[in-house]
């Protein structure tokens, strides 16, 4: 975990309203785990006041320079333009100075290589699943279910396919892949691979449905959550989510930034996760 000033390497629109940004990020390739995130800040920009959290899409090394120096590490984030901060981000160019705090939080548990795995991503929720898929030892036994409202929300398909992960696409309007919800597909896949571990990231209603299906099938489930965050390091207690066993009398809150963003489904209180007040403004 570090905080430093660094620069944007590239920033491109990859689908209407979705951008992919490469950032010079020493230390990340060695340290970052799938499911972790960064707190991103546009330097000298105020507003926004607070940093914005983004999942790590992937890490890597730049092609080495001819200067004999060790190759440079980068991370990539993929973000959807939704408000003040992301609107400013979309205008960033190569060389612009930013600040990066990370890698933060608890990532996915990669499990054993000989397990079946089903990755379920909705819209921007696909982001952390890419790094997860990349790190999985046995890609042949992993399937990725991609869901979105329209074809525009199905981002980075080619990247996933290049990894050699079997992918299934569904859209609510049928503009790409199967028409309907990604959870339909999950239901079918779990029937086919009843021993599978499920990894999911996406909007809360999707996660809620995924949780129900997994509970029915008794399939282990890891979910990656979003929450409003101020600090990202467990200091402000702004990002909490209700934990299993939470009640008015014995409240039990978990920090999404530190104890998450990836949780085992059993750790969470699912009855209350879909309450409207859990909605973080524009939670998708």
């Amino acid at each position, binding site marked *: 975990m570090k905080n*430093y000033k660094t620069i944007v390497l590239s920033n491109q629109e990859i689908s209407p309203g979705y951008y992919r940004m490469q950032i010079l990020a020493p230390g990340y390739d060695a340290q970052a785990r799938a499911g972790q995130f960064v707190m991103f800040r546009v330097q000298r920009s105020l507003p926004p006041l607070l940093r914005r959290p983004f999942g790590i899409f992937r890490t890597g090394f730049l092609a080495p320079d001819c200067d004999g120096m060790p190759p440079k590490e980068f991370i990539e984030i993929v973000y959807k333009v939704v408000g003040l901060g992301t609107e400013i981000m979309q205008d960033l160019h190569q060389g612009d100075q930013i600040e990066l705090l990370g890698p933060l939080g608890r990532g996915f548990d990669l499990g054993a290589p000989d397990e079946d795995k089903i990755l379920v991503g909705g819209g921007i929720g696909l982001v952390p699943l890419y790094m997860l898929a990349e790190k999985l030892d046995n890609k042949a036994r992993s399937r990725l279910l991609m869901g979105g409202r329209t074809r525009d929300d199905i981002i980075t398909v080619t990247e996933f396919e290049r990894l050699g992960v079997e992918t299934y696409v569904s859209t609510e309007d049928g503009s790409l892949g199967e028409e309907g919800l990604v959870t339909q597909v999950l239901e079918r896949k779990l029937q086919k691979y009843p021993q599978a571990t499920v990894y999911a990231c996406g909007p809360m209603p999707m996660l809620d449905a995924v949780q129900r299906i997994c509970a029915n099938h008794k399939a282990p489930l890891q979910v990656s959550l979003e929450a409003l965050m*101020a600090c990202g*390091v*467990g200091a*402000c207690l702004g990002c*909490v989510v209700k934990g299993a066993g939470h009640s008015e009398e014995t409240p039990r809150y978990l920090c999404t930034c530190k104890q998450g963003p990836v949780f085992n489904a059993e750790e969470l209180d699912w009855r209350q996760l879909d309450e409207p007040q*859990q909605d973080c*403004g524009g939670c998708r």
Partner: protein
Amino acid sequence: MTEMQGQRTTSVQRPRMEVEFAGLRLRNPVMPASGTFGYGEEYSSFIDLNQLGAVVTKGLSLRPKAGNPTPRIAETTGGMLNAIGLQNVGVDAFISQKMPFLEQYHTPVIVNFFGNTAEEYAEVAARLNDVPNVAALEMNISCPNVKHGGIVFGTEPQAAYDVVSLVRERLDKPLIVKLTPNVTDIRVTAKAVEDAGADAISLINTLTGMAVDVKTRRPRLANQIGGLSGPGIRPIAVRLTHQVVQTVKLPVIGIGGIFRAMDALEFLIVGARAVQVGTANFVDPNAMSQIITDLENFCIDEGIEDINDLIGTLQL
């Protein structure tokens, strides 16, 4: 990519940065504001706690407190609202689980605390009184008194006087009382707190605010109202600090919207002996470190040998 830094590598004589008040001796006048720095450990991989003037903990209560439902925070222009609801591990868990970490450092630990009744305040103070490495207590009186219709202690001079007196009886350590800005005349509260035996005053706590999501037409905080902090409130905090410095003899710690050394200087110049940095930590975990360096550099540039020579030098 550059690690953040700012130390000048000249041979200039470095200014004296220590400040002393209320029996405390601080390496420099910069410390975190309660609730924005956890229990110290959370930020310890980003900032060397030994660099700080003091560490100030999240507010502690007699029993663990769960806090409010979510959403608990909302960004506003030039600030943020929070309604964390004073979630904390409770004073006993703090002493057994959180203090040992802080004891590794030689930075004074100031423990912020609160209660729902005057007795609770006194009991928390009493328990902390026996913890050797707690340097001082900071008493947050911006809490509703559940025994008296939920009126906030800090908005009623008599209630403030009573609760501070009670705590004073049970506490030998230095007692800092933290005032709420949500009053008509803060000088009255400051005087009451001084009379009740406080050793120092810190201010300001957050201003009460509210924000509405116009699409859902709901308050953006589950708690409806919350506390406004950040750079937008700084002019209010500077004014209140100035007024309190002019009113009481007690040393004063300035808080509110401090993001840069320039901001800290405003408080020091109006007479604060030290400052606390809150929301800025979220935006930049390095903020306090940068402020300390830049304060030193400001002193060098202005030919000030001792930062104490700056304190209270407002020209009227």
